């Protein structure tokens, strides 16, 4: 079950977009399969690019915050909240998080 606000669900789309788009171009244009190449660096680079893309688009989309009002007994308290989140985490933060998860998975696979 996915919990998100605004366009927060697009995090995974942005993260894998470079792998699909650039990976597809490399494969169909130059015959380079990033998933089967001798070096892991093409895939790592595309994942880093995905994280940068997620961070950049997330930061851009969250530049305008939304007001959330709490009516305390003492009077209304307004807090500013990001528009686009995934599991209550700002969209742009998912860039480094997904990258960390990816490298943790790669490290686990290589040391296993």
């Amino acid at each position, binding site marked *: *079950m*996915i*919990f*998100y*606000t*605004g366009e*927060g*669900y697009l995090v995974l789309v942005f993260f894998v977009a470079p792998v699909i788009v650039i990976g597809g171009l490399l494969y169909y244009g130059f015959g380079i399969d990033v998933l089967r190449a001798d070096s892991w660096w093409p895939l790592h680079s595309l994942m880093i690019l995905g994280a940068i893309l997620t961070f950049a688009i997330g930061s851009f989309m969250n530049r305008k915050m*939304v*007001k*959330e*009002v*709490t*009516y*305390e*007994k003492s009077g*209304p308290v307004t807090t500013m*909240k990001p*528009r686009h989140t995934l599991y209550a985490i700002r969209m742009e933060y998912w860039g480094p998080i997904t990258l960390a998860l990816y490298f943790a998975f790669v490290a686990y696979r290589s040391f296993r």
Partner: protein
Amino acid sequence: MSPIEIRLAPLSYWRLLLIFIVAPVGIYLYLGYLPFIIWIILPIALISLLFKLIRGQSKKPIIILDEHGVFDRRLKVGVIEWGDIRRMKSYSLSGAEYISLELHNMKKYASRRPLWLGAISQVQRVFGMTSIAISTNGLDVDHATLVQWLHEGCGMEGVEARTVDIG
């Protein structure tokens, strides 16, 4: 605040037709048979629809907003006074929209509800909502307008709804 009455939106016969005739026919044509679960759901849905059509749609307002507070007939908690509302949050649960109300004295209102309704509404807490949440589907006003009116009732104007989508 001048009293505002919110009623159920008129039944869309085209939508009902789509659900009860076109959808089963489409599934049959696609799969070549009707799955067992459809055979169970369809008669139950048809009977409840006939029951609803015979009874007719209620003309009574579902939600009333006035100077005292908000009254939702479905919640069975009586009038929720404006001063008791601490926070309201919008949720979209696979297309079903709710305004979850966080109250200063939740126990006072929760104790007014029948036990069965209180137990059922606890499910909402799994999704981060409080047990008192106004369903905004099928009403004659849209979700954002109702949120706006609720904020106006609480004394704040121009607050945009931020919806938590759960899908």
